[in-house]
């Protein structure tokens, strides 16, 4: 049998299995928004763990991380710092977001921010920023999916057809089974991609070099520039090392698909243990990526597109069945992020725009069907974006994480009480200037003084937020007492009993 037939068949077998999971999830689905959008706020540790990590790791983390090690060397091991920090923010911020969601029934990030800042303008701005900066991240996943299927099939399945097939599968199990289907497929995907990258990396390393330790020695002998900073192309300067940590820690956690997951936990202890243990998965996933990237740099030194190093090595040096299994892992990485972003944007648009302003008094079943329709619409948009790639869209993709990061001061103003209260005017001003500075420092004059544009934007955002808040009207004392008082009792008082 042709290798591409084997590889592609395994990928399709995986897709069929995800559809089956979606159908099973549908049988347990309650037709109300809390179940369809938030898993009934009953996600246990294992499910939430795997959905968080599989949402975090997309196709470009699966493939792109190897490419980064290939191009820039061991400097990408900086990933350990931001994954450890992601654990901290999950532990501290995630548990507070969960507590407020449980106490006040929040479903979206904008619910929480609009409530505290007493502003529908805040709601709309947060919803728009969330959707705008993540919808283009959908395009990144779609491109990755189409590319993977095209490579796996040896070009027999064209990019456009492959993209359409994978998008159809992802949106189908989402609209059939809601967040329950997303979570169950994420469990499968989280395990599959982890095993796939480790098995693929170890097999390649032993076949090509005799083992990981031998690989490191050979890299030191032939390409020592890959083993120190700033790397062959001078990317990992001190400023870039530090600022990537800031952007990739907080910029990921603040994105709606991550924040919504905090609402779905069964308890605060679940979130805290997630925070403590997620870095284990995250950090160890980069170990095989390093082996693939560095080994690839020795084996195929002139790759035009280093992101392709993993599938290229697989096709050249491993049997087709293994290539299929590992590429199914890449598909799972992309789909797990894609379905999470689709779900998050569906939730935000249904709750913050449709339910709020278009049809406030409809039934739960009505909103579920509206959500399903919105998901279909988002998929069509994503497909068109993947086919017609405009220059400005490419730029906006690069801004995705750094853009969502601009909501961080507003979120911290709610979740971390201090004597100084942020105001709606302050946070709106901060978001506005943050996005403007982001455009200037990430696009027009990229990364001044080697600091990532996201850090410049966050700095400007924070300064203006604090200054404007000092001279503008805070929320009503009753609101501050209700929300900050809840957090005070939750964190330093009765714990979860304070939420009843």
């Amino acid at each position, binding site marked *: 049998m042709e290798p591409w037939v084997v590889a592609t068949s395994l990928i399709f077998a995986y897709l069929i299995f995800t559809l089956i999971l979606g159908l099973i999830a549908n049988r347990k689905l309650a037709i109300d928004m809390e179940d369809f959008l938030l898993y009934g706020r009953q996600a246990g540790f294992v499910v939430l763990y795997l959905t968080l990590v599989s949402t975090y790791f997309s196709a470009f983390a699966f493939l792109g991380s190897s490419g980064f090690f290939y191009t820039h060397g*061991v400097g990408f*091991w900086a990933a*350990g*710092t931001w994954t*450890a*920090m992601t*654990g*901290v923010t999950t*532990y501290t911020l995630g548990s507070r977001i969960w507590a407020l969601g449980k106490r006040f029934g929040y479903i979206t990030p904008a619910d929480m921010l609009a409530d505290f800042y007493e502003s529908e303008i805040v709601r709309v701005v947060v919803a728009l920023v969330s959707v705008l900066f993540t919808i283009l991240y959908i395009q990144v996943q779609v491109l990755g999916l189409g590319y993977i299927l095209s490579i796996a099939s040896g070009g027999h399945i064209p990019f456009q057809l492959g993209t359409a097939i994978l998008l159809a599968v992802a949106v189908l199990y989402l609209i059939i089974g809601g967040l329950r289907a997303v979570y169950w497929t994420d469990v499968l995907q989280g395990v599959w991609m982890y095993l796939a990258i480790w098995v693929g990396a170890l097999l390649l390393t032993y076949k090509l070099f005799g083992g*990981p*330790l031998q690989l*490191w020695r050979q*890299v*030191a002998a032939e390409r*020592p520039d890959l*083993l*120190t*900073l*700033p790397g062959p192309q001078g990317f*990992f*300067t*001190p*400023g870039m*090392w*530090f600022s990537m*940590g800031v952007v990739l820690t907080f910029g990921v956690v603040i994105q709606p698909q991550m924040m919504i997951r905090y609402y779905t936990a069964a308890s605060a202890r679940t979130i*805290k*243990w997630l*925070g*403590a*243990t997620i*870095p*284990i998965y995250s*950090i160890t996933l980069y170990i095989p990526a*390093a082996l693939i990237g560095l080994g690839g740099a020795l084996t195929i030194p002139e790759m035009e597109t280093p992101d392709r190093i993993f599938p290229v090595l697989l096709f050249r040096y491993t049997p087709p069945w293994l290539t299929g299994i590992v590429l199914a892992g890449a598909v799972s990485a992309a789909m797990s992020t894609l379905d999470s972003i689709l779900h998050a944007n569906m939730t935000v648009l249904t709750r913050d725009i449709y339910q709020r302003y278009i049809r406030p008094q409809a039934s739960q079943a009505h909103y579920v069907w509206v959500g399903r329709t919105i998901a279909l619409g988002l998929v069509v948009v994503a497909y068109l974006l993947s086919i017609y790639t405009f220059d400005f869209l490419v730029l906006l993709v690069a801004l995705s994480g750094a853009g969502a990061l601009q909501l961080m001061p507003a979120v911290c103003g709610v*979740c*971390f*009480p*201090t*004597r100084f*209260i942020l105001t709606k005017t302050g946070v709106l001003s901060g978001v506005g200037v943050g996005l403007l500075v982001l455009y200037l420092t990430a696009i027009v004059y990229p990364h001044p003084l080697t600091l990532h544009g996201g850090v410049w934007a966050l700095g400007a955002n924070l300064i203006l937020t604090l200054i404007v808040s000092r001279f503008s009207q*805070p929320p*009503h*004392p*009753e609101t*501050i*007492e209700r929300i*900050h*008082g809840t*957090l*005070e009792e939750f*964190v*330093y008082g009765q714990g979860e009993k304070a939420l009843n």
Partner: protein
Amino acid sequence: MKLPSEKKIPQYHNHYLPRSRQGWIGLILFLFLMILAEPPIVTSWANRIEPWIFGVPFLYGYLTIIYCFLIAVLIWISWRKL
């Protein structure tokens, strides 16, 4: 009875800083380890290949050890319910 608008703004202690001894220990330990994994240490003193650590280049091995300790601190913080 005070009108809602006349009520004073509630004041809460800073939630960014720990309030217990163990909380401070956890915070200081974590920050100390992060400093070891950030510039200038990681881009100067730790930025070399020799000596090898358990068969891997120094920079990579050094960072791996730091990350293991960071995870251990996080698990300790969660286990102590801080």
